[in-house]
Every structure is written in structure tokens, then in C-alpha cells.
């Protein structure tokens, strides 16, 4: 249908529309008009992606000079592919309606592992191996060597692409990962480099967060994206953790050992090259005297995304003399390495800030701050000069150099914690240096600063006000949308007590309590008897799950559950879990029914949807608080309190509730779907917890279902499931939660729609 969104003609590729989609588009339009940032929460399964795409594409078509590009960031590969497919649907609709040829170029970008078509390289299993092998075939000096020595293997696909691929633009269209591969195969071009090149002039780019947020990759891939782009972060409820992860470094003794061998290799290579090809090193030296000026020039034209690792001021300067020659630099690295080794030889926990660390390093081994800051750049240059083929081998020294640059660049927002052993095993020495980012805004700041509109959206972003605070930006729109429902297809219940009236909670003091574990077991057992097909249960942590499963086994609870359903359990091994997941779905599919025991914050809870019969009930055992005894977390909480005035408890609860909401939200993936959401912990009933659930879940949480016993839960659940199992037709929804174009245009409907969005 064709919609009029605040004066903008929007093509929407369906015959019907949900009211909240209309409302969502209105808010989005306002954000784009204001050229500002937005935070939008809309339940999953209400067609968020297609609304976003429809509006932004329409906007791009209407104002091609205002918005030149859409950069859509999602989290996982399947999600990226889903977005592209929805886009394809939209574009098909455009061509059908306007009968004009599509002139849009949209493509997905992923890592080499997902795009490589080289027969040998793509056969490798791990991303790192693929990257390394690719590098050893496509690095510039390898190719130069190939010129003089044709027996040196190179990648034919890259050669072909390099020869002709850049001149001929990729024809307009929608390219998913597989389409890119097909196209590459047809032309004989490397799809990965083709995609990386094509994103510069594509209208829509879909890729993973890391390409924008991780400075190490963003610098390579995204630095030339135009300023007039709209950036969307979908499924952004975890965006702060992604930011923090990309800026944090852990150094163990093993890292240092490997770094030691790296340094030795470098030393040997340098002395060898010195005998054979001294000119090369001299050339590098003079280039370094010139400094990083070239990069600086580019930045002034405002075309490059700034690199947080490389702040502006160091671009003004040349690489300091003390590390300019290759030998000096290796010597410098050696000294730094020895210092780190000494720091790891401790018997008690040390926590210090970056300036303290710098002061200490200056006092102990006379390393200045300035050369440290150039470490990463200097190493990169050296590796290029020395023509090191396998970069992957040098991951340890690269890590150390990144650490050096980061620690000397940022005086705030980071902390250094050195732990001599793990908390659980105090007798085994396993020293780790955590260089931990505490401020997610550091990594995302360049994104907000650079692009005119950044939209952060997800199914669970409550409480909405916290994201602008921790990411340190000013949004123009902050809104949460509910799900309009013709029937209440979600049924959140809080189970607080067992039938024996013993409180159910995963609180630390009582979590090992026999009665609590038994009651949790009984709850699962009872539910397994009444819920059809699939049940997914989440635990607060892996260790907790292991313990509970073991004691359920001993008590014979699992045996009884097996009478009703098959049991599958997430393990720490991803391949094993994938298999369990597939079997789980198979068992749901063939009517046998199954239970999946899983972990909040685990891979399953983050990436897998349990649509329809794959998840008729989700049980959340306990409140998934993060492990609070971790020093890194404590440091971060302290930082949040001091810098953003967020209280520790508020943040912890927020973090726990967003994960709980993510877990239970996995089961509802649309209005025709239905599922029970069981929160098995009495603490959920408290206002501070309940209030942090997304509005679309909170709405259906009645006062009567706040502190149920297992029996009551079973009764309510039975009733709910029986009702939901009745046939549900489109006519039932029409006019309430599903609108035709005429219905949408009626006056009172527009008024109702206005209430859907709740401004925070």
C-alpha cells in the first residue's frame, strides 16, 4: 500500500499494516527531518525492520541530497541476511508499483569467511584462518613478488577484481551474501573486496556492528562513508557491551610468551633484510619522518571516520625518533614486554588508572607516553615493510601494541586491573592484566559525531532514558511503542513460591537451597506436562545451570520430565549447542515436544528466535544479574556512578532486566504467535524490577499474577494455552491490530495511533 507519512509518500510492501508500524514511521520521519538521533523501542515481531526500511528508502528517494546512504547495522549473520531479504521484498514492490527500473544498490557486507569463494581458502573453518590465508595471497608485496616470480601463488579472484572490478560499477540491485558470491563467481571477482569497494557508492549497506564500532575494523572498512548517512543499530539493547568489548584488552602470560617469539621473529627478519635489502628499511624511515601527514590531510576534508585509537593530535606529529628505526622499535617493544612481564609477577590484585600506569612505566623502564601512542601505527608499518605474510601469527604483538596505544591515549574511561589468579582457583597462578574500557561512549562517539542521524532500536530498550546517558548523546526522539493486540497473545506470570510456600528466588543466599532447586524442578515438570511442543528455560549463569541440572538428576526430576518431553541442554561448546538446538527444533517439529535448557547472556538467548511451536513457553529461572564480584564490573559501576550519576543498583537491575526481557521475548515473534512468559523469581514482583521491563510486556502483567504458586501458574497457563489454541483469523485482527488503508485514514484511528507511541 502507499502511505502518506507526514507528507512523505511511502511504499509499504504489504496489503495491511499494524498501527504501531505507522506510528513508528511517523517518529522515524520526525527524527530524520530534524537530522538528529533517535531511540525507538518496538516489540519484536511487529515488523520493525520493514517499517524502518520502507520509510528510509522513501526518504532517500524523496530527498536524495539530504540522505545519501543508509547504513544498517545488525548483530548476527542471519539477521543481516534477513534484513536484505526484507529489502528485496520492498524493492520488488517498488518496481511493481512504479514500473520504473530499480536504480538502488543495496548490499550486505560480512567477513571473508562468509564471502570468500576461493576454493582453498573458503574451505577453512575459522574466520581467523580465512583472514590469514587471504592476506597471504592478496598482500601488496606478495602480488609484487608474483610479478617477478609467477610461481608465487596469488588469489585469482582478487587479481581479476583488481584489474577490472573497480572500473565497472556493480549493477544496481539487492545483493545478499549469497548473491554477492554468485556475482563474484560469474565475473571471477572476489566478492569480499568487491563488497568493500561497493559500499562506498551503495545506497544501502547492511553489515555488522563491528564495522562501525570496532576501531580496528572501522578504520579499514567504514572510514569513507559519507556524512549524510543514516545509521541504524538494530537489536541495539547490547550496544554498550559491544562498544566496551571492542576497546578492552586482556593480557595473559601466554600472550606475553607468544609476543616474545613475535619479537624474536621480527628481530631476525630485520637483521636478514638489513643484509639483503637495506634500502627498504631506509625508505620506511623516511616515510615515517613524513609522519602520518597523509592521513591527516584526508581527515581535514571530513571524509574519514575518526579513529578512536588514533586521536587527532598525533596525526600532526611525526613518529618520534626513538622508535623510528626498525631496530629501535623492536628494542622498545622488548622493553615494554619485559615491563609487562614484571607487572604480571604479582601476588595480590592491583588496580590502577591509565595515568598511574604511565607514570609507573616511566619510572621503572623510562618509556615515555609519546612513543607508546605510536606503537600500533609503527607496528603496522613495520609488518608491511618486512613483508610478513601471516599476520595471524603476529596477533600477540599486535594486541600488545594496541594496548600501548590505548593506554597512552585515553586517560579517562579505562582502568587497569591485574589479577594474579582466578577467584575460583586461588591456588593456581594465572595472572591476567585487564585493560578494561568502562565508557561505551568512547567507541561510539565518532559515529554520533559524524553521521547526521543515528537510530538505536530494539524490542527491548527499557528504560529508554538510560541509553542516551551511557552512550552520551542527545536524541531528538525517544519513544516506546506497544504492541496492539486483538487477543492477548503473551502471558507474563511471576512465580514467587512453590506449592510448599517456600519463596523461589535465585538470590545468592538461597540459590543452593534444596527447596528452591526442587521447586524450580517442579515448576519445569508441571509446565512440561501442560505446554505443547517446545519450552525454553533460561538460567542465570552456566555454572548455576550445571549445578541445578546435576541436582535435578539426582532427585529424579529430570527423569520425570523426560516422560513428557525430550531434554536438550546448552553447553559451552558452540558446535555442540548448535546440534542440540537443531535436534530440539526437530523434536518440536515432529510433535514429540522438547525442553531446551539455556543460559541468559548465552549465545542462544541472544541470537536464536523460538517462533510459534518452537517456544510455547519461556521460563526464566531467577534474575540474570551479572556476576557482581568481578572487579571489572565494580570498576565500571563506580565509573558510571561518578560520571553519569547512575547508581550501581539501578544499572545492575537494568542490565539484568534487559537480559530477562530478551530471553522471554524470544518466544513472541509476531501477533499470530503466542507464548507463556514465566518469571520464576519472587524479586520480579518488585516495582523496581517490574518497571524496567519493556512496556509491551509490563502492560500484560496484572496485579493478580505477581506472586503465584506453581499450582496457580499451571492453572493460568492451561487456561491461556487453551484459549490461544483456538483458530485465529485475519478478520479477528482487522481494525484492531491490523489495518487496511481505509481504516488507517479514519480520524479516530489516527488518534488512537497517536497514543501508541510513548515519549520518554
Amino acid at each position: 500500500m502507499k502511505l502518506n507519512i507526514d507528507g512523505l509518500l511511502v511504499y509499504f510492501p504489504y496489503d495491511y499494516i499494524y498501527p504501531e508500524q505507522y506510528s513508528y514511521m511517523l517518529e522515524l520521519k520526525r527524527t530524520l527531518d530534524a537530522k538528529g538521533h533517535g531511540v525507538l523501542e518496538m516489540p519484536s515481531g511487529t515488523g520493525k525492520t520493514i517499517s524502518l526500511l520502507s520509510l528510509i528508502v522513501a526518504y532517500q528517494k524523496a530527498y536524495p541530497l539530504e540522505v545519501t546512504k543508509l547504513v544498517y547495522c545488525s548483530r548476527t549473520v542471519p539477521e543481516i541476511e534477513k534484513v536484505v531479504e526484507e529489502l528485496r521484498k520492498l524493492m520488488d514492490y517498488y518496481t511493481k508499483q512504479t514500473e520504473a527500473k530499480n536504480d538502488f544498490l543495496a548490499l550486505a557486507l560480512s567477513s571473508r569467511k562468509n564471502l570468500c569463494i576461493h576454493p582453498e581458502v573458503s574451505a577453512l573453518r575459522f574466520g581467523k584462518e580465512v583472514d590469514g590465508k587471504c592476506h597471504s595471497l592478496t598482500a601488496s608485496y606478495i602480488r609484487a613478488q608474483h610479478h617477478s616470480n609467477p610461481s608465487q601463488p596469488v588469489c585469482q579472484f582478487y587479481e581479476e577484481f583488481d584489474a577490472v572490478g573497480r572500473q565497472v560499477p556493480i549493477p544496481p540491485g539487492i545483493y545478499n551474501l549469497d548473491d554477492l558470491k554468485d556475482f563474484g563467481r560469474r565475473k571471477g571477482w572476489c566478492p569480499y573486496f568487491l563488497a568493500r569497494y561497493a559500499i562506498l557508492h551503495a545506497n544501502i549497506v547492511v553489515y555488522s556492528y563491528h564495522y562501525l564500532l570496532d576501531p580496528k575494523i572501522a578504520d579499514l572498512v567504514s572510514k569513507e562513508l559519507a556524512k549524510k548517512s543514516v545509521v541504524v543499530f538494530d537489536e541495539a539493547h547490547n550496544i554498550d557491551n559491544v562498544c566496551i568489548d571492542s576497546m578492552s584488552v586482556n593480557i595473559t602470560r601466554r600472550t606475553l610468551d607468544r609476543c616474545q617469539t613475535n619479537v624474536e621473529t621480527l628481530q631476525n627478519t630485520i637483521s636478514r633484510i638489513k643484509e639483503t635489502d637495506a634500502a627498504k628499511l631506509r625508505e620506511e624511515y623516511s616515510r615515517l619522518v613524513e609522519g602520518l601527514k597523509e592521513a591527516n590531510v584526508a581527515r581535514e576534508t571530513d571524509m574519514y571516520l575518526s579513529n578512536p585509537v588514533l586521536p587527532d593530535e598525533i596525526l600532526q606529529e611525526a613518529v618520534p625518533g626513538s622508535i623510528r628505526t626498525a631496530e629501535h622499535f623492536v628494542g622498545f617493544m622488548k622493553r615494554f614486554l619485559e615491563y609487562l612481564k614484571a607487572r604480571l609477577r604479582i601476588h595480590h590484585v592491583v588496580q590502577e588508572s591509565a595515568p598511574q600506569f604511565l607514570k609507573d612505566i616511566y619510572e621503572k623502564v623510562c618509556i615515555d607516553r609519546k612513543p607508546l601512542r605510536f606503537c600500533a601505527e609503527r607496528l603496522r608499518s613495520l609488518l608491511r615493510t618486512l613483508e610478513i605474510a601471516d599476520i595471524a601469527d603476529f596477533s600477540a604483538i599486535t594486541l600488545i601494541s594496541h594496548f600501548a596505544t590505548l593506554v597512552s591515549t585515553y586517560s579517562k574511561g579505562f582502568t587497569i586491573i591485574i589479577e594474579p589468579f582466578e577467584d575460583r582457583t586461588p591456588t593456581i597462578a594465572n595472572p591476567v592484566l585487564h585493560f578494561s574500557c568502562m565508557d561505551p561512549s568512547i567507541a561510539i562517539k565518532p559515529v554520533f559525531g559524524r553521521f547526521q542521524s543515528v537510530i538505536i532500536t530494539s524490542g527491548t530498550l527499557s528504560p529508554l532514558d538510560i541509553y542516551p546517558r551511557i552512550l552520551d548523546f542527545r536524541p531528538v526522539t525517544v519513544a516506546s511503542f506497544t504492541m496492539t493486540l486483538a487477543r492477548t497473545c503473551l502471558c507474563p506470570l511471576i512465580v514467587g513460591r512453590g506449592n510448599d510456600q517456600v519463596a523461589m528466588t535465585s538470590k545468592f543466599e538461597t540459590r543452593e537451597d534444596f527447596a528452591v532447586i526442587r521447586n524450580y524442578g517442579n515448576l519445569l515438570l508441571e509446565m512440561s506436562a501442560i505446554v505443547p511442543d517446545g519450552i525454553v528455560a533460561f538460567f542465570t549463569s552456566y555454572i548455576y545451570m550445571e549445578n541445578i541440572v546435576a541436582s535435578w538428576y539426582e532427585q529424579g526430576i529430570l527423569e520425570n520430565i523426560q516422560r513428557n518431553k525430550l531434554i536438550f541442554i546448552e553447553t559451552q561448546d558452540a558446535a555442540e549447542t548448535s546440534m542440540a538446538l537443531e535436534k530440539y527444533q526437530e523434536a518440536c517439529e515432529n510433535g514429540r515436544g522438547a525442553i531446551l535448557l539455556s543460559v541468559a547472556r548465552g549465545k542462544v538467548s541472544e541470537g536464536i528466535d523460538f517462533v510459534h511451536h518452537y517456544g510455547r513457553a519461556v521460563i526464566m529461572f531467577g534474575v540474570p544479574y551479572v556476576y557482581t564480584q568481578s572487579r571489572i564490573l565494580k570498576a565500571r559501576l563506580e565509573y558510571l556512578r561518578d560520571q553519569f550519576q547512575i547508581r550501581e543498583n539501578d544499572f545492575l537491575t537494568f542490565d539484568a532486566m534487559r537480559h530477562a526481557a530478551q530471553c522471554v521475548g524470544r518466544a513472541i515473534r509476531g501477533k499470530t504467535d503466542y507464548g507463556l512468559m514465566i518469571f520464576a523469581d519472587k524479586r520480579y514482583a518488585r516495582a523496581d524490577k517490574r518497571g524496567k521491563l519493556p512496556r509491551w510486556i509490563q502492560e500484560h502483567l496484572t496485579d493478580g499474577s505477581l506472586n503465584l504458586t506453581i499450582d496457580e501458574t499451571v492453572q493460568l497457563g492451561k487456561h491461556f494455552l487453551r484459549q490461544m489454541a483456538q483458530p485465529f483469523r485475519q478478520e479477528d485482527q482487522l481494525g484492531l491490530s491490523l489495518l487496511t488503508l481505509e481504516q488507517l485514514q479514519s480520524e479516530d484511528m489516527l488518534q488512537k495511533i497517536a497514543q501508541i507511541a510513548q515519549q520518554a
Partner: protein
Amino acid sequence: MINQILPFLSVAMASLSEEVLLVVKRVRQRKQDGTLYLMAERIAWGPEGKDRFTVSHLYADIRCQKISPDGKAKIQLQLVLHTGESTTFHFSNESTALKDRDVAKELLQQLLPKFKKKANKELEEKNRMLQEDPVLFQLYKDLVVSQVISAEEFWANRLSLNSVEHSLSNNNKQEVGISAAFLADIRPQTDGCNGLRYNLTTDIIESIFRTYPTVKQKYAENVPHNMTEKEFWTRFFQSHYFHRDRINTGLQDIFSECAKEDEKGLKSMVTQGVKNPMVDLLSLEDKTLDEGYGTATVPTTSNSSNKSLRENSNSAIIKRFNHHSAMVLAAGLRKAEAPSDQASETSSTDGNSRDSDLFQPPLKKVKLQEAIEYDDLQGDSVRKTISLNLKKSDRYSHGPIPLQSQHYSTSQDIINSISIIQHEMRSYKPRLTQVMSSSAASSAITALSPGGVLMQGGGQQTINQLVPTDVQSELKHLYTAAGELLRHFWSCFPVSTPFLEEKVVKMKSNLEKFQMTKLRPFQEKIQRQYLSTNLTGHLEEMLQAAYNKFQAWQTRRMMRKT
């Protein structure tokens, strides 16, 4: 093992020579010494010195056997019948009593299930047929309960009628899946003296074998040669394989190999990866952080040494559950897959190749499309179509060809005749001078209307108006019963075997019996009610026809004999 099999030994005291599988002497029953015989179809016992069996049970009648526990002074074997009665045999040969009992028990164990299934299936089948078909049930009541014919005769050609369909349905019968909790169902019981007793049934054993083929293999390797069945299961329950949370593997444990096999199987399942890309957690992340980056503490999976024993056993339990569930699921699917393969093969042979598979988009595409679909947003226009699956496409396009096509008028004929009629209608002119007078016409119409002179009498009143309903239903029953008997009768012709000869004679007498006991009283009844005796005329005719046939056959036989 069974060292006393005496094949084809004819026993003098048995009336018929039966295959005797086992003879055990010195078995007491009701405090009487005697000999126990296990034959092909029954078990029998005769007291010493007598030449007849005082106890004889068909295997099909036996529900189960029970044995006295080890260590009891009396070594006994009890047979429980379906009727609830039981017979106890006491093995009294001091030196070999235990062995004798075990031999008998094992032989029975092998024999009983065969007969059990057969008997039960037959009974079930008969029961089902009677329940599903009220007419048949009535017939059964009329003929069998009133002892016109015996139950066996009644079923004799019923079942054979159904046997084709029966065997068909048997082949396609859905395989019963395995309960996930079958191991849990083996509740160990304490026997009061520091021991455990497990009760195994054939179902559980089958479940174990189907789920864990390795155990079955072990069983096949070891049981007759190296150890007894009991010993095997004892070891099974003692092994860590059953209690999977135990980690230390004793080397002498025969199941440690099974565990290793399973481990291997699990590994290969894992390395095979998953078919559905949407659940492949390995390829979920686009770009994982390199080692050393990130805040999450790296899980210390590599060094299992610093894991406590308890943690190891916990993860062993988890692995076990995943494996167990996968195996149970696979065991259920294994059977289901085989016929579907066959079906697709057959379909590919009859001209309809499997090219439909070629048009199917790859799994990933399908899954993606499924994931982005909002069926409620879509209009009705895009309904999913089901592809037509043709076994024989020529049949579909041509349809059955009529046998006598010349009898059908072609469409051209129809069109022609219509045009002729139209033509005639157009040129129709009523000849008004020759019509009937209006009074004559109206009287004719009244006479022909219901209630008019011409419409009365004539005996055209239907039976259901004349005869009361109870008589009607009785008549119906008579008809079906007679029909059934006549069917039996006529099915004997042509009489080619002595068996049929015997049967036809019997059926004739059955018919006569029927006429005497059923038909006559009914005729008298309707006569008493002054109803037309005509009602049973047809029945009698049918019977008479049968008698005539019989007569003719008999005279011919006589002639041939003389």
C-alpha cells in the same frame, strides 16, 4: 544352552503327533510328580505313569510366567493365564532343578511373545471389527450367539476377507516411538538385603537396543557365549554407562567401549554441523573479537585439570542428556525415514521424476523467507500452493477412457438435437379443434392426483407405511443373517475339496436350522398380526434357490459316485 531339544519326537500319549521342544522330568504339580512337555503350540504336564495330560495350556492362553526368586527352597515356575487362573510347577529334581527351571523359562520366554502377539492381535482385530460395524455385530449376535453357526465359522471367511487389508495396514503401521524416560521406568527396588532389583520388560530391552545400538551389539557379541542374559544386564546397570555421571571407567567394564562409541558418535554429529543455517551458532557472529580483546573472561575449557571432579561430572550429565535425547529422537525417526525413501523411489520410476526437488530453493533461502514472512500483513492473494504430486501424469491428463464410447452421444449430437427441438417448437401450431373438453380434462387430473380414483389401492403402499417398525427391524436382521448364511453357502461352490464338501453340507443344515428357528417364528408372528405374509416371500425364495442348488449338486454327486 537348550540341550534337550528333541525335534519331531512323537509322544505316544498325545493324540496327535506334535513337535516336542522340551521334556522335563520330575516336575511336581499339585503335589504330584510328573513330566512337563513344551510343545510347538502348548505346554502340557502329565502325571507320572499316566498316558494323558492333566494340564495343557496353549501358549496363546498364557499371559505371563513367573519364577520363584533365587535362593528360595522351592524352585517353581508359575503360568498365569489370560483368564486369571494360574498353574504352578515345582521342579523337584534336586541336582538339576534350577537348571531345568531356567531352561524351561528361557524357552517359554522365547515362545510366549510370538503367540501373545498373534492371539492379541486377532482378538483385537475381531473386537475392533465388531465395534466398528453394528450390522456385523448384530449378525454375530444372530448367528453365533444363537448358535446357528460357530464363532470360528463366522470368522473363518470374515478375517480372510480382511486379511489383505489387514496385512497392508500392518505393514504401514506406525512404529511406536520410544519414551524418553524408558531408563527411568526401570525403577530399582531394594530386595531387603543390600541389593537392588531391576525389572526389565521386553519393551524396555527393545528401547535400550533401539536407542543404543552399541549395547545391542555388545549383547549379540557376549550373551550366549560369554555370559548369561542376567549377568549382562547386571553389568549394564552396574556400569558407568548407565550411571553416566560417574567418570572413572573401569577397564574390565565391557560398556566402556560403548561409551567411547557414543562419544565418537556425538563428536561426529557435532562435526557434521547443522543443516539449518539459522541455528548454527558457529556462524552466527559475523566478526568475533580476536583473542585477547573484550571484557568477558575467557572460559577455561582448555585446562580441564583445574576443574573439580564435580564440575566434570556435571558436564558429563549434560552431555549425556543431549546425547540421550538425540538418540531417542533418531531412533524414532529411523523407521520413519525408510519408507519415505521408498516412496520417492517408486514415484521416480513411474515417469514422474523427482525433478520437483530441483525446483526447491535451498534450505537457507526457505528459512530466510520463513523468517521474514508476516502472514497476517499479507493479503489473501498470496496463498501458499501445494504442488500437485502425480503418480501417473498421463492418467491425470487423459482421464479414464469409457469402455463403450459409442453409447455416449457426442456434444455435437446434443447440439443438433437441441436445434431440432428448437426448430420444432418454433413451428409448433396447436390444433385446437381436436382437444379434450375442459371438464373431461379436469376430471382426469383429479383422478390422477393423490387421493383420486386412479391413485388408490394398487398395493403400491410401501412397506414402511404398512408394517410396524419393530417388525421391520426384525425383518432387516433376518435379511442380513440370511444373506450372511447364504454367502457362506454359495462361497462353497464350486465344491472342489473335501473340506468344502463338508462345509456345504454343514451350511445347508445351517440354512435349514435358520429357517426353522428364525424364519418360521417370524412368519407365524406376522400371521398373528394379520400382516401380509408376502413379506418373507423373497427370503424363502432365496432359501429355496439354495436348496435347489444343493439338491442338484447332491444328485450329481450321487450319480458320479454310483
